[in-house]
């Protein structure tokens, strides 16, 4: 079956003018020859340090910023000629929930305001707002002022606002950047829920590597306006040979068992030396249980188990280093 793309952009360039002195100014490439394809229904992460160009790129894809070069389509609409149609079909949540949230209106009044602005059918407004308040666990806070609820709840309110209209694409710009761990976790869970239950394509920017790891089907690593790597997290690890490690100290293992383990999914390499079984895996949290189960079935004695996860962080750093060296 042919892959359906929500977004497909090619060789996008965006230059910003920087004033140096009163008259003199120079340009720098905020986005430098970026090509990207995002499938319908996926959670796609733009990962990069501050100033990498993530926000600029999502603003271009959302039709809020005109690119200086390249081509692209969002939901089959041309990035240049049909930017109004693109804007009507996408939703966006800014890094801070305060954008679009009026602290003088209650949670519900805020949603009522935006429901009219987004031209939601008059007969459906109340029902939709109720649905979203329930969906995002805000129902009991509907009469609260935004200032009197937590930052995480305010971020959920911003997400609720963006979901008032059932748009197929949702852009989240650093959705958890100003939240504490608990609030961030709740928002991440809702992002997964929105993607799973509503089938919305989500493009999020983040500089939290664990967030990308937890949420994203694929990530693009950006640096200085360029995409230096774009793939699934597992493929990125494979490419950079950054795997999780599993070390099991145990009694002698027959060779056929080692061969069997080597053929499993996620297992990249399996060796046995001096009572030490070394496994390189793409997902150690899956492999560990399967390997231990098999060793126990073989009545082998297990003395110790150690794991070392190759985080996306190490992949990210390696990718950045490789990217910078090649630029």
């Amino acid at each position, binding site marked *: 079956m042919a892959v359906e793309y929500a977004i497909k952009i090619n060789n996008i360039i*965006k230059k*910003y*003018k920087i004033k140096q002195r009163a008259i003199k100014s120079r340009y720098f490439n*905020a986005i430098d020859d970026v090509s990207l394809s995002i499938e319908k229904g996926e959670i796609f992460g733009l990962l990069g340090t501050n100033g990498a160009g993530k*926000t*600029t790129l999502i*603003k271009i894809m*959302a039709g*809020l*910023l*005109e690119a200086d070069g390249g081509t692209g389509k969002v939901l089959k609409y041309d990035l240049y000629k049909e*930017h109004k149609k693109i*804007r*009507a079909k*996408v*939703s*966006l949540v*800014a*890094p*801070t929930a*305060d*954008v*679009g949230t*009026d602290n*003088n*209106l209650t949670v519900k*009044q805020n949603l*009522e*305001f*935006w429901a*009219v*602005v*987004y*031209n939601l059918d*008059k007969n459906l407004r109340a029902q939709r707002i109720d649905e979203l308040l329930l969906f995002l666990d805000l129902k009991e806070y509907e009469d609260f002022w935004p200032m009197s609820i937590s930052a995480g709840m305010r971020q959920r309110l911003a997400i609720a606002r963006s979901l008032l209209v059932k748009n197929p694409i949702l852009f989240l*710009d650093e959705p958890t950047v100003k939240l504490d761990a608990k609030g961030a976790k709740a928002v991440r869970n809702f992002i997964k829920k929105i993607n799973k239950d509503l089938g919305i394509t989500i493009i999020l920017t983040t500089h939290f590597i664990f967030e990308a790891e937890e949420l994203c089907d694929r990530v693009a690593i950006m640096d200085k306006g360029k995409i230096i790597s774009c793939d699934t997290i597992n493929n990125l690890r494979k490419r950079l040979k950054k795997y999780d490690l599993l070390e099991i100290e145990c009694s002698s293992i027959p060779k056929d068992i080692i061969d069997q383990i080597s053929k499993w999914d996620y297992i990249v390499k399996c060796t046995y030396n001096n009572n030490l079984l070394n496994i390189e895996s793409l997902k150690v949290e899956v492999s560990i249980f399967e390997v231990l189960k098999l060793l126990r079935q073989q009545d082998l004695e297990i003395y110790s188990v150690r794991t070392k996860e190759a985080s996306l962080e190490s992949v990210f750093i390696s990718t950045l280093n490789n990217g910078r060296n090649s630029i």
Partner: protein
Amino acid sequence: MNRLKSELASLKMFSKREFIIWSSYRMNAWMWVLDVFFNTTIFFLLSLVTKGSDISFFPYGNNYVTFIVIGLGVHYISYTNLGDPFARVSKIYWGGTMDLYLLSPLSYYTPLMGIMFRSVIDDYPRVILALLFGGLFFGAIYSVANIWLIFLLLILILTSTLGFGIISASSFYLFNFKQNTEPVRFILQDIIIALTAGYYYPLTVLPYPLQVVGSFIPHTYALDAFRRLLIPGGDLMARVLPIQLLIDIPPITLDILILVLMTIITIPLGLFMYVQGIKKARREGTLTRWQ
């Protein structure tokens, strides 16, 4: 038709939101009434300067309190319509909501008009209150000879000053004036209007070159017509303004025509410049600022 309906529904929602916000601060209403009262008092005290003197306000009758209260009313409208659009666009920008409005099906103008409702609620009723306080406490007398003409003039001063206001607002994006001092508003409001609007004195007392400068602002014509119509003893036919001396048309008719002309020039020009400003900001990435 549907589009217009949804734009109007949005404007109604904006006004509702602004009213909720305005009325949620109870002190606001009292402060508001007191502010108008003290402003009217100051203007009344100014009027005492002329008491017993033979200063002529020809052709605007002989009641200086009425003269000056009308000035205060036009000042309220002008200050709001000229200064507010820029401040509101600035608020949308610094609040980061311009992106969100652009992602809605609203026209570019609706959010601008919508958030101006705060001023409509806050400032326009001040005109009525000022006229009321003037009449109740300070001896202003009004002659309401032609209510429809007064109503028409009220609409024209609203629209013509709003046109200048939108031009001023468009400079936020079009010329990148992101700070408080914006040249269009500064030159108009703080220089030309402050000097030549004639809130406190008739334009005719100014040196002729300043009278000519004053001919380019709508206040001159609105005040001229309002004062002739509202102040007892106002002369409807005497020609005193530079342009009235040049064109042989009854003064109030000429005032209305000039205000219409200013409206049909400034409003379309302002709206055009505003859209160009947004397009420019979309190209340059300066539509909004997320903090």
